[in-house]
């Protein structure tokens, strides 16, 4: 290897023609192979799409919930009912934008939208992209965890908690209310995710229960306390684990996940007092897309997610709170009263989610 002279590619084509030609043929063959493979691949996809999408016994889902969290229960639904399930995974907000564009072009592909948070569902609802859910579906959950206009329904819940580093903080010193985090003792110690959907939903819930003035004051207090911004919950949990910040405002299950990956990580969840705005339940929601001709199959799927099998799957496999009436919460988390859950409505709050975003930005938490 060392002896080879790298100072090469001489401009003397005639001496190299045989090898060069062979290389070109090889390249051409590779190209052809790649193209053929790609063509076959797309053929496979389109033919399978045609065979399933056209028939009534299939359903197409755009899922903002990750495959890791939901594919197993979708597979089980498919096995039990014989209904084929096609899923496009992505970020909830991005998929909502895509549904918006498809719907605007009268060319919707999705029958069901599963969202990580109510924000993206509210976005689609205000433009009339979501269908009204059947009563039989709506009745499965308490009123508090579904849309007041009956266009989406919560199917699992995550509690907002304070994750903390067990090496740096004593649980006894942790606050019972999220409002105590504006105390100077927490200066430069808090991690937040101001651009993340579930943080924004939590702030919107606070606006709903405490009013805009109190919320604004709290946001400014957190910003003045030099809270550190992260893009998402999992990044906060990792930062708390590293000791970069001592505590962080997150959804409860991220730390349970992190401990499953690395049991030695010094982090734990702390629950705020029941009824505190910091302990609100953020729901993941399902909706049926307006204009789908498979609304019945779509509703069947949503009902399945809210049935005993679906709800216990979320409780035991993803550590989430089941929302359907009569279902038990997972063993790994403490039970909370449904009375503490706020089914706030975006339309009721002036400006909805955009007003929340502006308030977060104005407080100096974003950017």
């Amino acid at each position, binding site marked *: 290897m060392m002896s080879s*002279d790298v100072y090469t590619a001489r401009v003397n084509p005639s001496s190299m023609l045989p090898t060069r030609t062979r290389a070109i043929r090889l390249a051409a063959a*590779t190209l052809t192979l790649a193209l053929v493979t790609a063509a076959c691949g797309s053929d496979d996809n389109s033919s399978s799409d045609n065979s399933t999408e056209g028939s009534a016994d299939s359903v197409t889902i755009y899922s903002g919930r990750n495959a890791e969290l939901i594919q197993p229960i979708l597979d089980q639904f498919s096995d039990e009912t014989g209904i084929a399930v096609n899923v*496009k995974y992505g970020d909830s907000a991005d998929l909502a934008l895509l549904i918006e564009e498809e719907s605007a072009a009268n060319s919707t592909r999705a029958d069901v939208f599963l969202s990580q948070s109510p924000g993206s569902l509210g976005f689609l609802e205000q433009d009339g992209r979501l269908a009204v859910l059947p009563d039989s579906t709506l009745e499965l959950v308490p009123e508090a965890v579904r849309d007041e206009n009956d266009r989406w329904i919560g199917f699992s819940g995550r509690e907002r908690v304070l994750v903390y580093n067990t090496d740096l903080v004593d649980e006894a010193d942790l606050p019972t209310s999220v409002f105590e985090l504006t105390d100077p003792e927490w200066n430069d110690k808090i991690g937040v995710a101001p651009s993340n959907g579930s943080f924004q939903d939590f702030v919107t819930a606070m606006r709903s229960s405490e009013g805009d003035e109190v919320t604004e004051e709290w946001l400014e207090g957190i910003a003045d306390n030099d809270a550190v911004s992260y893009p998402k919950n999992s990044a906060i949990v990792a930062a708390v684990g590293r*000791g970069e910040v001592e505590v962080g405002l997150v959804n409860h299950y991220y730390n349970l996940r992190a401990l499953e990956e*690395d049991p030695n990580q010094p982090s734990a969840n702390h629950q705020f007092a029941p009824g505190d705005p910091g302990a609100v339940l953020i729901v993941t929601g399902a909706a049926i897309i307006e204009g789908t001709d498979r609304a019945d199959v779509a509703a069947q799927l949503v009902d399945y997610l809210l049935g005993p099998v679906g709800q216990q799957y979320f409780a035991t496999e993803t550590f989430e709170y089941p929302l359907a009436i009569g279902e038990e919460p997972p063993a790994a988390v403490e039970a909370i009263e449904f009375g503490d859950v706020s089914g706030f409505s975006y339309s009721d709050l002036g400006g909805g989610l955009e007003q929340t975003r502006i308030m977060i*930005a104005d407080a100096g938490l974003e*950017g």
Partner: protein
Amino acid sequence: MRLLSLAIGAVFAGPAVFVVWRTLRLGAALPETLSEIPAPLWRTVQLAVLVSTTTAVLGTGLAWLTMRTNLPLRRLWRVILVLPLVLPSFVGAAAFIAGLAPGGVIHDSLELVGISPPRRFRGLGASWLVLSAFTYPYVLLPVMARLVSLRSSLDESGRLLGFTATQVFIRITLPQLKPAILGGSLLVFLYTVSEFGAVQLLGYDTLTRVIYSTRQTNRALSFAAATVLLILALGIVALERSRRGVVAPDDRAETTTAPAVKLRWRAVPAFVACALVAAIGLVVPLLSLGTWARRGLVDGRVSLSELADPALSTATVAVTAAVLAVLVVLPIAIGSIRRPHPISHVSSVSVVVGFAIPGLVIALSLAVLTLNTPIFNRFYQTMGLLVLAYIIHFGSQALAGTETAVRAVPSGLRESSKLLEPRTIRRALRIDMPLMRPGLAAAGGLVMLSTLKELPITLLLSPIGFSTLATEIWASYEEGFYAATGLASLVLVAMSAVLTWILVLRPSEAVSS
């Protein structure tokens, strides 16, 4: 040829035109725009200037060391030093930060030498370091390709005049490399301004944050921010085009085989420099990813076999996009190098700015454009549209290398070869291709590596059920399934190394030496 390059340019301009059209239609309020955009814009420009300057120096230096000197293990370095490009930036940055945690490689090595590790790693400095370490290959690959095809006779003359190796490099080689360096730095600049995942994780607020955080709640502002990004990109492309100097074909056909520069004692600092760059851009992230993957493999939560399908489809789609991207931009490159004309310039600018538009915006604009066009709507969410989107987004990466390739064919040689071989296709294959191969391989290589890790376009525009390694990495990372993230990332890096070696580096190397 001009008509063809005009048509190609028009297709590439699609998303940009859409962004401007929608911005005008939604009409963001001016006071709002003025209060939300300037500060992040200024931060974006600062970061982009820092990163592109750093990578220009780093990429050029490393290319020269690995191509023109007797640096130990230089052929191995050529593969290793290209690889930092292949990790999706959000996972690269996350894995890098993980190295700073207690038990992480940076944390522990710093403690070993008695330095207390930083508590936080955030802001402009952190983003500059991480993005530079991940993006310098955008400069490295085109410059390596240029060095391979560069005539060495001028170097020889320089040496005869008594120049030292350094003087030869600065006074003779560097001016000839300028277009490749500028083209590469331009890619880095555009990558940096449209980057979102890594800068967010590193706590540095840029213009893409405005685009993302307002994409649902205030679409007018979101599109206004995208248009500002587009204008910034156009400005920087114009600047690059005015500074890159002569890009006519090389007119010197004669060559000599110059000996590799002997580094002697300088081989030690050169080797250390390569090792340091590889450590930051590759080794630190890989060690963190390895730790994550090991935990999952030990208790059997993850397995390699599940990744076979995504790996195969990733490789197929990336190689396809790479080959097609090079073929598509070739007419534009030929036009702008051999017969410069305003049309080819406009087309080439339209190809380049496609890289400044964030992938999410490209995906949405192509969705809107196809869904609302009667015949094209059947291509929505097909492999065809997905590959087209990759080509539009990454065509700029193919253009720089393709221009280098076109320049490598001397005009004189083309004239004389016409006499010897009248058949155009045979002539192209036998005379032009061998000379163009290093440039074309570098061009396709960049597109391939970028496609391998592409995320937002793949998620939105792929056929339902299609998954790549990047989507697997994203899905598992998003929810904190780090073992799966680690394993898929390691597979991605390994596969990229093999593909880079076989398809990009080997074709550029001498077959006969």
